């Protein structure tokens, strides 16, 4: 064992003792040692509640908005492709045909004139003609946009049964207009048949000049058979 010399300086010993006590003091866990982690946690919590959470929420909103916009882009792309595939000339021609068959306006006078002429052509004599504009409410729908517009009226003619039947047939097959027959009565008086019926012709008013590009679009070319019927009927009007 080493022996401590008696010549050790008292001052040095004091310093050593001070150093020991200082080290012991410093070795103790103080509040200053944990203040930074605690502050960081508090700042993190405050930032989280007031900054990070709103920022994340906003970023999620951006993401969902982004998805909607991407979907819209895809929809517009499809629409653009569909519209570009339509030939402008054919489209205009088909539109003119469709507007002839189901016009934008149907005058009561011209419609009745056409029906009466047809009846006379079939050898019938008129006994009653009256007509007016009608607004037909489609099944269960009551909004303004769901009405079908037309011209309708009760008619009565007299003639042979064959002529009456030929007249009825031509209303559908020969008429350039879209026509429906309701409340048909055929009654024989000796050899003369009296035919009374309600005839309706339809029209579609001019639609809005702007289109919603995001609305569901069905190209008319899907109904080629009906487009052909319109074409045939329109040629009969020329």
């Amino acid at each position: 064992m080493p022996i401590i010399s008696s010549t050790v300086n008292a001052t040095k010993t004091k310093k050593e003792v001070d150093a020991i006590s200082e080290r012991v003091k410093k070795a103790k866990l103080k509040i200053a040692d944990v203040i930074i982690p605690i502050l960081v946690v508090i700042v993190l919590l405050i930032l989280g509640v007031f900054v990070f959470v709103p920022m994340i929420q906003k970023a999620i909103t951006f993401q969902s908005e982004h998805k909607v916009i991407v979907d819209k882009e895809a929809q517009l792309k499809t629409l653009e492709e569909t519209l570009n595939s339509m030939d402008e000339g054919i489209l205009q021609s088909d539109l003119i045909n469709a507007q002839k068959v189901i016009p934008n306006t149907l005058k009561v006078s011209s419609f009745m004139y056409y029906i009466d002429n047809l009846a006379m052509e079939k050898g019938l004599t008129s006994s009653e003609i009256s007509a007016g504009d009608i607004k037909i409410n489609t099944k269960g729908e009551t909004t303004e946009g769901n009405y079908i517009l037309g011209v309708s009226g009760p008619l009565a003619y007299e003639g042979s049964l064959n002529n009456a039947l030929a007249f009825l047939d031509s209303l559908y097959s020969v008429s350039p207009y879209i026509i429906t027959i309701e409340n048909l009565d055929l009654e024989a008086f000796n050899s003369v048949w009296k035919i009374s019926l309600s005839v309706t012709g339809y029209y579609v008013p001019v639609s809005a000049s702007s289109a919603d590009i995001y609305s569901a679009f069905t190209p008319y070319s899907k109904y080629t058979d009906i487009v052909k019927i319109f074409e045939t009927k329109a040629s009969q009007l020329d």
Partner: protein
Amino acid sequence: MNNPEPNVKNTQKTVVEQKPPVKVGQPTPPPPMPKNEAPRPGFENIMAEKGVNLIPTLSKEEVVVAEKKKKLNVGSIVSLLILVVISILIVGFNIVSRMALNNEKTKLNTYETQVTKIAQKMIASNEITERIQLYNRVLSETYSPKSVVDYINAIASKSGTSTVSTFSLGQDLLFTIEGKATDMENVSKFWYLLSNDPKMETVTLQSVGNNGNYIRFIFKGKLVLKEFLSSINN
């Protein structure tokens, strides 16, 4: 950062490196160490190379506290780093999302401009489609009156002497027919034929009566609509 560790070490080092007073000319021989004998634990702290270390070794509790402080200091650095990293990530995510959204909005505007230029085609197509739908709606449930009248007349002539003098056709092919026959047998035959006809949905004899020379009858019923649709939808 409050890092007292280096001070402690320095202090320790300072204390350890303090040399004991040595008399000049009288070198103190080192304590005899038995050969091949390992030093006892803590001995090297007490016994310096050229002197005696008066500082006592750290107690177990002191070592634990010092370790804890060391850990806490590292924890502070890590916490700060995490805070910075989280901040960067969240702000970055937000900025990237906003930029991507703005980019897509610009692209969408370009598309909208392009499509608007050809929207006239869409309007024209919609106008045709509207008429096609009206045509389908109006003519989907209509029938040829001529074919109906011809069909009923054909059944009447099959029954014998029955003739129909009044036809009333309503919606969904509901019908009322009035006529006459020479005898009841012909009326019942006509009724039988109507009742068993495949195109007839329902039929009832509304009234029948003897009118001197002939029998008058009234039938009411309904025809199968789909059987008479094809003749007009062409």
